[in-house]
């Protein structure tokens, strides 16, 4: 029983350390990064870190801005909020990407800018 309790505490400790580590790295983009392509149904994102307290500078353009601009902006802002990215310059050029593509490309750009490119070659 004691053994199990011991393991339990170790697990909690590890989990906390992981979360803390995760949170500390996702706050601050380190490098300028990009993802996606200019192909149809795709979107290209460019992200670069800005000095502290600069805020977000978003430049979004899309071939379907009239129809889907609002939801595109919402997706971008929601993801930046999720990753707690505040001081960044983001450029998006969309060629009609669907929501899963927008999210995938932005996630990739964010992780690259955080220097978190696990499982790839830079």
């Amino acid at each position, binding site marked *: 029983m004691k053994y199990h309790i011991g393991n339990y505490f170790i697990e909690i400790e590890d989990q906390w350390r992981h979360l803390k580590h995760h949170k500390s790295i996702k706050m601050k983009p380190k490098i300028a990064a990009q*993802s*996606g392509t200019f*192909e*149809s*149904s*795709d979107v290209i994102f460019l992200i670069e870190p800005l000095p502290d307290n600069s805020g977000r500078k978003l430049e979004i353009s899309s071939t379907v801005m009239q129809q889907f601009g609002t939801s595109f902006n919402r997706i971008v802002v929601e993801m930046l909020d999720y990753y707690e990215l505040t001081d960044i310059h983001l450029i998006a050029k969309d060629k009609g*990407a*669907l*929501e*899963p*593509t927008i*999210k*995938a*490309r932005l*996630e*990739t750009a964010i*992780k*690259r800018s955080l220097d978190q*490119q*696990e*499982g*790839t*070659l*830079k």
Partner: protein
Amino acid sequence: MLYIPGNNPAMIQQGGIYGADSILLDLEDAVALNQKDAARTLVRNMMKVINFYDTEVCVRVNHLSTPFGLADLEEIVPLQPSAIRYPKTESSEEVAELLKIIEKIEDRHGLPHNKMTLHAMIETAMGVQNVFSIASKFSRVDAITIGGQDLTADMNIIYTPDGVGIDFARKRIIMAAKASHIDVIDTVFPDVNDEDGLRKETEYAKKIGFTGKAVINPRQIDIIHEVFTPTEEEIRKAYHIVKEFKTNSAAGIGVFAIDGKMIDAPVVARAEYILKLANVTVG
């Protein structure tokens, strides 16, 4: 089985409408080394949302010896595609190691071990040598495939349209699959503009025992289907054989003749297989 590059959103989102029996979202050779992260994230997101209708979805992950393989499995296994296709499989030990990792991931997500299957790709001379143990030892391996381009590269030969260099490998792989009662899928025909060549190679693949063929372009799907789908004449003949067999069996007759040709158990089994392919039942 249609290969779709894992980093191409336009093709992935249309994957279910090309008419292929299955699509293979490729994280391996179709993705540049510096885009592996992007493709993995894209495929994961697409699989969660896109409706592929009744098209089976398989994902080709990178080999575990690369820096990408484990990360691929961590993202894809929780989504439980119909199958994971594992490239350059060389031994049953390798498959055992892969399955151990897959099952660990499944355990972590509370997923069963019997839903998603594994397709082992045989693309090296060593893989060809060990193909029977790869095909027969694991219940989760339900298909093996041959990768012609990589195999010719491994053998230091040039891939030729007549496929003579990989003919032994093709037949050895087929025999291993047949002995293990699993599917066996032929390699791609790389020249998308040569429709006659594709038809000829597909007819050969069918003749020697392949159960399907991979394609790299939707334009190739119809030809493959035409070749592998039984003709109306074949279906009529098979229907006649099975119907006569049922009538004769009921009368206690095991071997009989149709148009002067002996019909016995192997002929009936072949006829039943044709009807199964054509989705026809004999009342």
